[in-house]
């Protein structure tokens, strides 16, 4: 079989020779037995020579075979000598057999033949011992250094085979055992083991085989013993009572014993486990049953820590990390680490990365070896591999919830340097399976809790949270006397943003402030959205002095934040009023009220300072002058064309909404706002009677009206602040398809598609929508449905389809402002 498998490798060639030596030995041994049975000495000395030479050659070839199999980089000369020794022994046995066996005598009692040893028989044992020792040392070294459970298993098989042969050979030296073919059986088993080791790709773990055998032995020993004892005791008792016993009675007792003692079966298995695995059994059992207990833990941190502790203890691992999926960041972040060399700052893995994808698809543990050798794992790129190497991860175990990867464990090497056995991996996989459910529950709980206690807009804690946390802090305040500070914050100037740019814009500012506060407060306390534009920072363990420092820092940070935020318009300055209050023997509600009062004092002070500053700097600020200018200009149009009253403001508000929906940046939104407000400003250059005419317009009048975008551009270009809005004003009557003919031609320049500024495209759509739905002196406004249909009809022709889509989405959401 070995020869057929492959003769190209040295290990296979040596194994073939090695098996040949076994055959030589066994043939001699068999002939000795047959001769003994015949009772005639005949050629017994020849057969004994074969036994001696065969066994010597066998042991001599064992070293080259092991050397070729394990491939250590040592003792190459010794290996060659060993090979020559084997050859020499066979040659001597053929040409000069009296060197090993000089004759055969018969044992007076047993009648067995006893070989008379020649001069080389005993000395040949010396090199045999030496070579065997070296071969054994190779195996032990390879076993200790190998990190592959599979390879270690193979070495164990080899060692057991060799031990069997040694036992068989030793048995031959014993006068009593010599008559039995122990060496033949041992050699046969060894030959099978060696062939299997070399030829078979996968071997059953020897530990599993031994464990199962041991379990059977223990079960048979205990249960059978107890059954027999029960039957004997029953018979004796019944004989005393009934005066007789019989087969049927014994059978009846046996059946009863089996039924009564059946539960013992599990006990014996557990006993066998305990005897076999020792203390590890406790951990395995705990891990097996622990997973059920995990489901009751809803705190994510607690759950993660418990899981990792359990895994690291059970398997005695150097480190194990839990990577949890963070939906927002599309990343698996290291949530916690267990074991001595755990690294809590372990690098994260992309949720879109190949490692995550492979773990999810595979749904089973992945070893470092798998990563290296499985073809499909080649798609995991080297940077992800480098991260795993940095962690020292040897085993990755996915945690799947509804076939989606929600977390994975990365376990490092075991501290005793033994590899991850298949049994370990299976146990860990089963554990992970149940832990995934627990983890899913905990995450869901955490998410729900987070949603219940946080403000959805800003992501800060809400008042419900405050109601939970304040009593706790109050208790700590009273019980431990720890200080507590509350910092109330109110935004000054925020309302104008809602009035001016709409609520959606205002919400964006609040979102920014939420992010800012979360970052600034950090671990120092909790930031809470207290009301519309009011916030509260709860600062546990903070006295008045520290609280003052924090307030000052936050005050300064707010100034920088408002200066840099793209959402803050210099025309509408924003500021924060901060009121700090510390415990001072009061309960939490009183501190809260005092903080509120302190904040109002700060607000009043700011108002005073502002009005004084305005008085001192007599000419009003340029920004507000410009704004007034814009509003004033818009009002002129309202006065000149009465039926357009409110049109500009409506167009402006809806345009801003559409702009935000299309992802415009804050500064672009502001420009759009100005342009939308002033898009018809050019009408002031048209004769009033034309712009107010209620009947159909003549061709000349139409031409006059169509000059208003150009006139509007000229007007607003005069004001520095409004200049960026000029292109949108000029082109808000262009058609998306660039047509300059027909009932609704594009003008003034006939631009097409994206050549038209986005602001102008937005205003064009919103302007048309407002014009369609507004009442005019000569007609009533159309219904919303009709207007929508009209817009859809013009989409891609008169109007930019993206803009139409965004507007329709807003309209369908019902967020269109009431007229």
């Amino acid at each position, binding site marked *: 079989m070995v020869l057929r498998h*492959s003769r*190209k*490798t*040295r*290990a296979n060639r040596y194994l073939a020779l090695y098996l040949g030596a076994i055959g030589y030995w066994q043939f001699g041994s068999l002939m000795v037995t047959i001769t003994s049975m015949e009772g005639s000495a005949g050629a017994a000395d020849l057969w004994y020579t074969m036994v001696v030479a065969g066994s010597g050659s066998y042991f001599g070839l064992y070293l080259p075979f092991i050397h*070729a199999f394990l*491939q250590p*980089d040592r003792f*190459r000369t010794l290996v060659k000598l060993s090979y020559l020794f084997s050859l020499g022994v066979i040659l001597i046995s053929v040409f000069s057999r009296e060197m090993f066996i000089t004759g055969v005598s018969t044992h007076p009692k047993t009648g067995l033949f006893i070989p008379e040893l020649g001069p080389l028989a005993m000395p040949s044992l010396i090199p045999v011992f030496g070579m065997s020792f070296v071969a054994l040392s190779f195996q032990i070294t390879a076993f200790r250094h190998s990190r*592959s459970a*599979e*390879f270690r298993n*193979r070495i164990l098989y080899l060692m057991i085979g060799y031990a069997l042969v040694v036992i068989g050979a030793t048995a031959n030296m014993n006068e009593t055992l010599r008559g039995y073919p122990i060496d033949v059986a041992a050699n046969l088993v060894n030959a099978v083991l060696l062939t299997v080791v070399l030829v078979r*790709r996968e071997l059953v773990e020897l530990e599993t085989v031994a464990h199962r055998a041991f379990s059977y032995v223990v079960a048979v020993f205990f249960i059978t013993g107890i059954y027999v004892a029960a039957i004997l005791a029953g018979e004796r008792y019944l004989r005393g009572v009934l005066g007789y016993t019989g087969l049927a009675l014994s059978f009846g007792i046996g059946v009863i014993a089996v039924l009564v003692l059946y539960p013992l079966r599990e006990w014996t298995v557990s006993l066998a486990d305990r005897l076999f695995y020792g203390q590890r059994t406790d951990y395995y059992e705990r891990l097996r049953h622990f997973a059920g207990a995990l489901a009751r833990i809803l705190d994510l941190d607690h759950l993660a820590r418990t899981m990792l502790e359990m895994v690291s203890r059970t398997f005695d691992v150097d480190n194990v990390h839990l990577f949890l999926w963070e939906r927002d960041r599309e990343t698996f972040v290291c949530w916690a680490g267990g074991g001595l060399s755990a690294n809590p700052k372990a690098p994260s893995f992309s949720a879109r990365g*190949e490692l995550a994808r492979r773990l999810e698809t595979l749904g089973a543990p992945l070893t470092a*070896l798998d990563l*290296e*050798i*499985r*073809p*499909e794992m*080649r*798609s*995991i*790129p*080297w*940077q992800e591999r480098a991260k795993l190497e940095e962690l020292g991860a040897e085993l990755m175990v996915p945690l799947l919830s509804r076939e989606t990867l929600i977390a994975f464990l990365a376990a490092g090497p075991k501290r005793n340097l033994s590899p991850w056995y298949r049994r370990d991996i299976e146990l860990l996989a089963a554990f992970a399976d149940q832990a995934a459910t627990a983890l899913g529950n905990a995450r869901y709980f955490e998410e729900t809790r987070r949603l219940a206690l946080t403000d959805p807009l800003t992501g800060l804690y809400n008042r419900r949270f405050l109601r939970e946390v304040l009593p706790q802090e109050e208790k700590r305040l009273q019980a431990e006397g720890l200080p507590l500070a509350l910092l109330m914050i109110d935004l000054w100037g925020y309302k104008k943003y809602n009035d001016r740019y709409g609520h959606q814009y205002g919400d964006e500012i609040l979102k920014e402030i939420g992010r800012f506060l979360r970052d600034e407060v950090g671990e120092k306390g909790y930031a809470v959205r207290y009301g519309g534009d009011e916030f509260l920072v709860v600062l546990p363990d903070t006295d008045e002095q520290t609280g003052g420092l924090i307030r000052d820092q936050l005050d300064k940070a707010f100034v920088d934040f408002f200066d840099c935020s793209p959402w803050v318009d210099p025309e509408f300055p924003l500021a924060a009023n901060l009121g700090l209050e510390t415990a001072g023997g009061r309960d939490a509600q009183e501190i809260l009220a005092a903080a509120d009062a302190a904040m109002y004092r700060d607000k009043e002070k700011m108002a005073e300072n502002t009005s004084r500053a305005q008085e001192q700097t007599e000419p009003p600020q340029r920004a507000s002058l410009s704004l007034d200018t814009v509003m004033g200009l818009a009002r002129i149009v309202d006065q000149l064309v009465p039926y357009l009253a409110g049109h500009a403001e409506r167009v402006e508000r809806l345009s801003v909404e559409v702009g935000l929906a299309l992802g415009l940046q804050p500064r672009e939104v502001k420009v759009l706002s100005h342009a939308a407000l002033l898009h018809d400003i050019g009408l002031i250059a048209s004769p009033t009677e034309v712009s107010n005419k209620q009947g159909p317009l003549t061709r000349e009048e139409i031409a006059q009206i169509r000059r208003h975008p150009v006139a509007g551009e000229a007007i607003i270009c005069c004001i520095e602040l409004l200049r960026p809005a000029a292109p949108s004003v000029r082109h808000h009557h262009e058609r998306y398809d660039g047509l300059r003919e027909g009932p609704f031609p594009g003008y003034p320049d006939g631009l097409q598609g994206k050549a038209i500024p986005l602001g102008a495209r937005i205003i064009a759509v919103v302007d048309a929508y407002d014009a369609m739905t507004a009442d005019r002196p000569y007609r009533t406004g159309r219904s919303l449905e009709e207007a929508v249909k009209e817009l859809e009809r013009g989409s891609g022709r008169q109007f930019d389809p993206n803009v139409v889509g965004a507007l329709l989405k807003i309209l369908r959401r019902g967020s269109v402002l009431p007229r």
Partner: protein
Amino acid sequence: MRHEIWSKFCGFIDLPLDDFMRVQASYLLEQLDFLGRSDIGRKFLGNKAPRSVEEFRERVPLTSYDDYYPFFSERNDEGLPEKPYVWCRTSGRSGIYPFKWIPFTRQAFNKHSEHAMATVIFGGCSKRGEIVMEPGDTILYALAPRPYMSGAIMADGLVHQFDFNFLPDIKTAEGMSFQDRTKVGFQLALKKGLDFFLGIASVLVAVGERFERGEGGGFSRELLHPATLRRILGGVMKSKVKRREMLPKDVWNLKCVGTGGTDTQVYRKRIAHYWGKEPVEAYGCTEGGIISIQTWGRRGLVFVPDTNFLEFLPVEPPAGPDGITRAQVAAARAVAERNGRGETRAPIRTAGEAVGGTLLLDQLQEGVTYEIVLSNFLGGCLVRYRTGDIVRINTKGDPELGIQIPHMHFFGREQDIIDLSGFTRLTEVILWKALEESGVRYTDWVCRKEYDGDRVFLRLYVEPKEARPEKEIRDLVHEQLREIDHDYAALVEITGRVPLEVTLLPQGAFSGYMAEMARRGVELAHLKPRRMGPPAGNLGLLQRAGAP
């Protein structure tokens, strides 16, 4: 363990094509992210690296060495994404540059050395999963030394991966010339045995020919070494039994012959005859390292998934095989030129699905030739680089061996292909094969396309080893060309003319040429004239060099 070794090095052939493409995509995206942080990366990828394969192919232009020259010429690490582990250079003249320098990172070096191992394993096995190499196996490598890619990746990579016994050992070999190293290698092989040969096919053929002619190397003390003596005596006995001259295969029982380059296809049969082992081929280039490897089935070379992102520029096929119109060719060429910077060197065949002018591996068609465009993985720097190497796709997979990855054959370098009247594109391999099969004994040859009025023909310049008339040689080679190349046969049939002429060069033409070049201080790689389309100056020198 053998199974693990096989899976690690050779397991890529088990990838379904979808998984192969996934590996390509995954490595590319990682590479773009990595490369995008360097100056050289920003030059090609812009400030924002592409986020998908499609975006990459649409946005990034095709490149040539000109684009990299400012970064690579001085082997300066600045501007590169990572300090190179090794710089490799091309062996031959590369366009306007005497040679090209290409950086390799440590990760790339490791990956290429894994594929070098795969080549050796495939060369030795006769079935899936079989591994015949063992520690201490002897290996003779007749390859260019470092800093050439073959020396740096194949030889050093194998040292890095496995405990081979190099003949001579790498350190000793570094100080020796190519000829000395090969000579010493074979001497050592007589003593220590020879398990693996990696190198140039013609070296093996030359050694085989010497054996066949019974030309020994003369008596030397080394021959008295018992191991050498045993090996030679064994060889003599085997040859006597078979009643023929002793051949290398009688002396050595090689496990694997690994070769690369155009001559492998020409000498395949002769190597098997002399050495008892059919060679295994690997295709690669300095710019991309190892790109494809032949498996034990010896049917084409299988692409490797994890060294380069592979794109393919369709090359115009020889006269009208599958209904591609000239207009389509022109359109595809326009796309490629728009995406590339300069002139498109090879004519492009169209493909409706081509993105950025190229196709991916899963879009290729059998029997069609393509130019390879590659982008390095693992920290390399080349992006959508046109190699100029033309390959032909033999098959989309090998069902017999259970391989689902397309197989290729090296067709020729774009600059070495001679287009004859638009009918056929003759490569060095085709001409060389024809000359080999013709039975003409020759020293070397070169070939040019020439014109005589309206007649376009090939002129083969041959330095013969035997006295034969030019016409006889022409007829023999012509017949072989008709057999080997169907398009050539079609051209002959349609025109009724023989588009081949032969000119004999005087004896010693090539050796004289090389001596003259050596005298002028030309580098080793440029000592020989270009075989396909050498400049007129070279031809003149050849004729003069051989003159008495």
